[in-house]
């Protein structure tokens, strides 16, 4: 331990399982190195809890390098904590001061029930993707690399939207627990490219239908999602979703049969 170590007080949401009441529990956390990541800090706290024979704090994580979208905590009332464009796993303890109190809560949304402590069930996002967040392709020989022209600006906007890692910080931060930023990223990512055109109208209609059915709220253009997003997905994508939805709703035709891609 060095002289720079932090002595923190943590208030952590503890909940033994789904459908049981939970509460914020206070933990004393001395000797936290400023070089640790936020999750490493929780690892240390958990080791100490286990040494005392207590149940460790459950939290989600996987890559710990900001690319998988598994981690996600609401830290002092901000999804993924105080740093812009930073996942919880990439947040470091050097941004905290000795003596700080840190409140840690799970993503809060009706469609995301708490599984345990800080772990929530984000399966609704998988079902939204399954409803339309894909393109259908025929297998066979690989097509020529540049056979289909893609304007550079479309490619860039599409890539920006494709940066979404599906962490759901947008839902956690939105006062309405809306999933619009997530859905708009997927709709934009696919809809801006030629390969996404055949299913473009059906995609936006189906993904929104699934989003609504899961119980997420609607968008009120408040912008908390954009501020919380670790991948800086822009609100402009939601405008594009709205535009696509309106166009699809007005121009869609009765279905003439199933299939088509095969």
């Amino acid at each position: 331990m060095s002289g720079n170590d932090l002595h923190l007080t943590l208030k952590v949401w503890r909940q033994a399982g789904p459908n049981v009441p939970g509460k914020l529990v206070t933990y004393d956390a001395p000797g936290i190195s400023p070089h640790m990541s936020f999750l490493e800090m929780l690892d240390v706290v958990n080791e100490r809890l286990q040494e005392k024979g207590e149940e460790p704090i459950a939290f989600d994580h996987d890559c710990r390098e900001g690319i998988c979208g598994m981690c996600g905590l609401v830290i002092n009332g901000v999804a993924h904590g105080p740093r812009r464009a930073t996942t919880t796993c990439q947040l470091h303890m050097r941004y905290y001061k000795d003596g700080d109190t840190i409140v840690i809560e799970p993503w809060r949304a009706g469609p995301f029930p708490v599984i345990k402590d800080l772990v929530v069930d984000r399966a609704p996002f998988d079902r939204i993707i399954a409803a339309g967040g894909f393109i259908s392709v025929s297998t066979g020989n690989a097509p020529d690399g540049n056979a289909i022209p893609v304007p550079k600006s479309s490619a860039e906007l599409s890539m920006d939207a494709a940066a979404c890692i599906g962490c759901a910080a947008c839902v956690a931060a939105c006062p309405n627990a809306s999933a619009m930023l997530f859905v708009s990223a997927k709709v934009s990512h696919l809809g801006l490219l030629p390969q996404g055109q055949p299913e473009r109208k059906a995609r936006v209609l189906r993904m929104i239908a699934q989003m609504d059915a899961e119980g997420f709220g609607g968008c009120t253009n408040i912008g908390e999602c954009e501020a919380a997003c670790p991948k800086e997905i822009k609100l402009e994508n939601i405008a594009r979703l709205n535009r696509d939805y309106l166009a699809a709703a007005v121009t869609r035709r009765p279905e003439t049969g199933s299939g088509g891609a095969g």
Partner: protein
Amino acid sequence: MSAIPLSDIRPLGATVGKKVLLAVTGLVMYGFVFIHMVGNLQLYAGPEKINHYGELLQNAKPLLWTARIVLLAAVGIHILLSLQLWLKNRAARPVKYSHQDYQAATYASRTMILSGPIIGFFIVYHVLHFTVGWAHPDFVKGDVFHNVVVGFQNPFVSGFYVLAMVCLGFHLYHGAYSLFQTLGLRGPTVDKRLKVVLTAISMLIVIANISFPLSVLAGIVKLPAVSAPASASLAAGK
């Protein structure tokens, strides 16, 4: 998982579709409050001008009733959908955070459900006050100038008008730009200009409308010494 049949999807029942209708009805009302404010400015041109304007509207019955029906429908749809969406949005977060530190939300954007209903109550009162006359102490049909000046001489009435217009200002501060986002009508080249223009229009509406009750209270706009015909006949009847 099997795909959702497209024929089962009712866009106007979806959050996005409802929000589009909220935006369209909001735009209709936004247009109306702007035109209404411009018409009101004739208060500063004296009794003849504004009474003549009122007469003009009263004589254009088909136009008047079309406008009234469109506005009534817009207000009704706007209120119904905003409440439906608000309830769904609230239900989406059954467990609140112990504390949430907002990063981008504005006061206006978080209080739409407060400013909106206050405007709603105001609309009802305003119609009973100046259109129907039931909520007016000395209503003279056709004498718009008299009704407005007498109506605003009560500081509580004027105060409520000012409050309602401040609420309208907050509502439009968020709503006017929000509606373009909802309709998908924005992009990097228009964003800045759009925001400036919309904010200027909203401020103009609010400031001009607030100036009317204040001008009456300050005595800048007052009943003519020799009363206009309708007021004169009323005075004679006493």
